[in-house]
């Protein structure tokens, strides 16, 4: 009992940390974003200082009152474009992280085989009156919904990652995409050992070209809700025995799922390592 708070503390933070860990593990946009933000900060500092100097010199006669007028500022177009890029990259990062986290499909197989939403309710079967009121289905569906929230999966927007990616890519015009590519090329030239920029560029280009299936494993996880409902509707809803139910599921060959087919997703991820010789490294 004395150690219970400690165990609880470790469990909660491990659970919470898993999401952050995954986000950092699959982060491919931060280096580029930080580079762009840093450059913006340097230019903004310069422009602000220089504008103040120009202002000090633009009313050269002491007979003139304060005649400050805001000057036209074409640099605002640059910052507006960058703000679009930041939003775009955040969306791309979200899709990329989801695909990478679940692409192996192991979690969806585990959920289909182990059916934890059945296990968690099996202890309440002694209360037959509860079974008859249909609480079983509600609890199983609630468990599934909570699991989706814990995994940061939105059953509406993440159901079709292809569509989500297409919508994200359509946020930029052709010219803006071209400029972004040139930014990537500049960044890659300045930091040739950075592989994340190549991964990011490859992911965006693959998304612009083809429509392979992304996020099949996520679809399996989301689809589990329909499976729960279908199984429940097919029974008499009376005298449900969780153990019997689980045995039936385990023996059913259709649930012996194969890994979600990684249909041509390899092209999405540039997994090149840093084996290339860095010709600019003179040290």
């Amino acid at each position: 009992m004395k150690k219970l708070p400690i165990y609880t503390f470790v469990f909660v933070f491990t659970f919470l940390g898993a999401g952050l860990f995954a986000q950092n593990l699959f982060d491919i946009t931060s280096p580029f974003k930080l580079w762009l933000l840093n450059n913006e900060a340097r230019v903004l500092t310069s422009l602000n200082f220089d504008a103040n100097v120009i202002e000090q010199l633009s009313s050269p006669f002491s007979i003139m009152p304060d005649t400050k007028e805001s000057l036209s500022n074409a640099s605002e177009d640059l910052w507006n474009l960058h703000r679009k890029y930041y939003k775009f990259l955040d969306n791309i990062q979200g899709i990329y992280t989801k695909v990478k986290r679940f692409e192996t499909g192991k979690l969806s197989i585990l959920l289909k085989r182990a059916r934890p939403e059945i296990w968690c309710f099996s202890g309440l079967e002694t209360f037959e009156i509860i079974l008859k009121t249909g609480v079983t289905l509600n609890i199983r569906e609630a468990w599934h919904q909570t699991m989706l929230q814990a995994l940061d999966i939105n059953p509406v927007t993440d159901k079709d990652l292809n569509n989500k990616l297409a919508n994200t890519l359509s946020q930029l015009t052709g010219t803006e995409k071209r400029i972004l590519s040139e930014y990537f090329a500049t960044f890659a030239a300045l930091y040739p050992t950075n592989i994340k920029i190549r991964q990011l560029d490859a992911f965006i280009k693959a998304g612009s070209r083809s429509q392979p299936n992304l996020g099949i494993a996520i679809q399996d996880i989301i689809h589990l809700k329909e499976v729960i409902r279908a199984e429940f509707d097919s029974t008499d809803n009376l005298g449900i025995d969780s153990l019997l139910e689980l045995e039936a599921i385990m023996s059913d060959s259709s649930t012996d799922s194969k890994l979600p087919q990684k249909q041509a997703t390899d092209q999405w991820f540039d997994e090149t390592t840093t084996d290339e010789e860095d010709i600019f490294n003179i040290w």
Partner: protein
Amino acid sequence: MGFIFLLNGNLMASDSTKELAFNFETGSNYSYSYKTRSNSKSTLFDITNNKENKTKTAKFDIKCIAYQNDAFILDIKKDNLTIRRYLKKNGELKGSPSEVGVELPFFITFPNGNWKVSQTHKTSKNIRINNVNCPATWLLTLRSLDPKDSLAIIDFSAQVNLPQDQTRKKSLKLEGKVWFDYFKGNITKANWISKYNLNFSNKEIAVIRDLWTIETNSWHSLELLNTEDKK
């Protein structure tokens, strides 16, 4: 002959040298018009964005209250707001009670005494922005004296050392012309332009990549509209 030579000598001296000094008449009102417009351009790879502000016009009046302690006491009124300044004859600001704590611009001042045609007069100051000093110098050159209209034409330009480094290359060019009525002691007209350019690049070891170029140009003109004498 000596008398004629002396007379001619004096005329020649007044054509080539003159003391330029402000001379506001106490009680008189001077109305000025000030116009400004600007445009700017930003370049990102092969994409250029242009923006332009339309010409803006402002008017202000100068009323000379008095001349005391070697300074004109002027009320400068613009948009129902009056500021008071104490101005020396060479244009130097002696005081500004309504602008205490305000960082005032770097003003041009004329040289004391006679100013020779083609002579350049310099005034320097450290413009302080955010605890950073930026040395600036006004260069004024008397181009010509027109005795017919009693107009002196003066070219002026600013020399500024903007802070820059390997990644931020800057240039600032500010120059103009002022027409000064040396008989009445006031500015009749002035035009000036400022051109600013910033070229920003990234440098990592031996790799240099240009990123952005930002240019800003502004045009200004000042014109005396009319003078109302105290009479």
